[in-house]
C-alpha cells in the first residue's frame, strides 16, 4: 500500500512539474480585439449605435454586450463581418428593417447657417455661409446629426431613393 501511494505521489509530482513548465512555456496573452473591431467600424463617430463613438461600440462588441447589427451605416455587410470576427451568429432580421436613409436639404427653408456641415462627421454636406447647402449622396451615412442641429428643420432624413442602379430583386415569397 505504501508503495502504491508513494509511486503515485511521485508520478503526480513529476506530472505537476511538466504541467507547470508547459503552462509557462505555452502561455498566450488574450488577443487584443477591441482595436481590431474599431478598425472595422466606419469611424464616423456618428453615434447611431447609441454608444459614444465607434470606440465605445467596439468595446461593447468585444465584450459581447452589443449586437453585431448595431451599426446602421455599416449595414448588413459590416454586421456579417463583425459576426464572423466575433464568432457569433448574426441575426440580420433586425437589420433588414432599417431602411437606409439619406439627408436632404429643403432649399426653400435653408438659411445657409452652416451648422449642419460643421456637424457632419463625413463632410457630406457642402455649402458656405448664406448659401444653400446640398448633400453628397455618396458620403452621407444617414446619421441624422445634421437634422438634429438644423435650426429651421430644413434638413430631414428620407429613405434612399430606389433607382435602376440600386434596385434589386426582393427575396421570393417563401416556398
Amino acid at each position, binding site marked *: *500500500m505504501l508503495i*502504491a501511494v508513494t509511486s503515485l*505521489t511521485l508520478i503526480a509530482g513529476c506530472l505537476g512539474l511538466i504541467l507547470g513548465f508547459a*503552462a509557462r512555456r505555452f502561455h498566450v496573452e488574450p488577443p487584443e480585439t477591441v482595436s481590431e473591431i474599431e478598425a472595422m467600424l466606419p469611424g464616423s463617430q456618428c453615434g447611431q449605435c447609441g454608444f459614444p463613438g465607434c470606440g465605445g461600440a467596439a468595446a461593447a462588441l468585444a465584450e459581447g454586450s452589443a449586437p453585431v447589427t448595431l451599426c446602421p451605416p455599416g449595414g448588413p455587410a459590416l454586421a456579417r463581418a463583425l459576426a464572423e470576427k466575433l464568432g457569433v451568429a448574426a441575426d440580420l432580421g433586425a437589420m433588414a428593417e432599417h431602411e437606409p436613409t439619406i439627408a436632404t436639404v429643403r432649399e426653400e427653408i435653408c438659411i445657409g447657417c452652416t451648422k449642419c456641415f460643421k456637424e457632419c462627421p463625413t463632410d457630406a454636406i457642402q455649402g458656405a455661409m448664406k448659401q444653400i447647402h446640398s448633400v453628397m449622396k455618396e458620403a452621407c451615412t444617414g446619421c441624422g446629426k445634421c437634422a438634429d442641429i438644423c435650426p429651421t428643420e430644413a434638413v430631414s432624413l428620407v429613405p434612399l431613393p430606389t433607382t435602376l442602379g440600386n434596385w434589386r430583386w426582393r427575396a421570393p415569397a417563401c416556398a
Partner: protein
Amino acid sequence: MIGHQTLERLRPTIPFQASMLALTVMLASAALSVADRATRQPIADAVARDTRASLAQVLPPDSFDNDPAADVLDTSDGGMPVTVHVARKSGVPTAVVLATSTRGYAGEIGLVVGISREQRVLGVRVTRHSETPGLGDKIEIAKSDWVASFAGRHLSDPETAKWAVRKDGGVFDQFAGATITPRAVVAAVKRCLVLYRSEHEQWFSVRKP
C-alpha cells in the same frame, strides 16, 4: 496555515504546483487504500451471499450441510470455464452445482445448473445475460418459468437426440421469435450433464475440509 499573501506568492511557482498535485494524489490514494481495506471484507461477504443465494435456488435446502459456495473447484468444458460447487451432507457429496456460461444471441449467458447424484437436473437458473428484452430474456425465471422445464431431466430423459428445442426436433419449447437463446441454454445444460457423468468421480475424490 500559511498566510494569504504567502499563498499568492507561492501559487505561480512550479515546485508549488508540482507538490500540490503530488499532495492531492497522495491524500487521494491513501484515502482509497483505507477505503479498500475497510470494504474488502463486506464485499467478500456480499459476493459469497450472492453465490449462496443462487446456489440455493438450484439445490434442495435439506440436501446439504456444508457451504457449497466455499466448496469449489474449477474445471473447464470445451474451453468454457466451469466452476463446480459440491454440496455435501455429513461430508458425503449429495449434489453439485455447475456454474458456467454459454454464448447466447447477444453475448454470454451465465448459468448455474444443479445436478443430483442420480444425474438428474435439480434446477437451472440464469445468473446474467444480455438477451433481447421481450424475446430472449424469457430464460430468466422472473420472466418465464421456461427454465423450470429442465428440473428432473436426465441425459436419457429425454433421449439424447431430443435434448433440443422443438424446432430442431427436441422436446424443449423455443420462444416465438427467438430460437438461438433457448437453443444455447439447452445445449449448455446438456453439456453440463455430460460433463458431470464423465467427471464427477474425480470431483468427489477431492476431499475438502
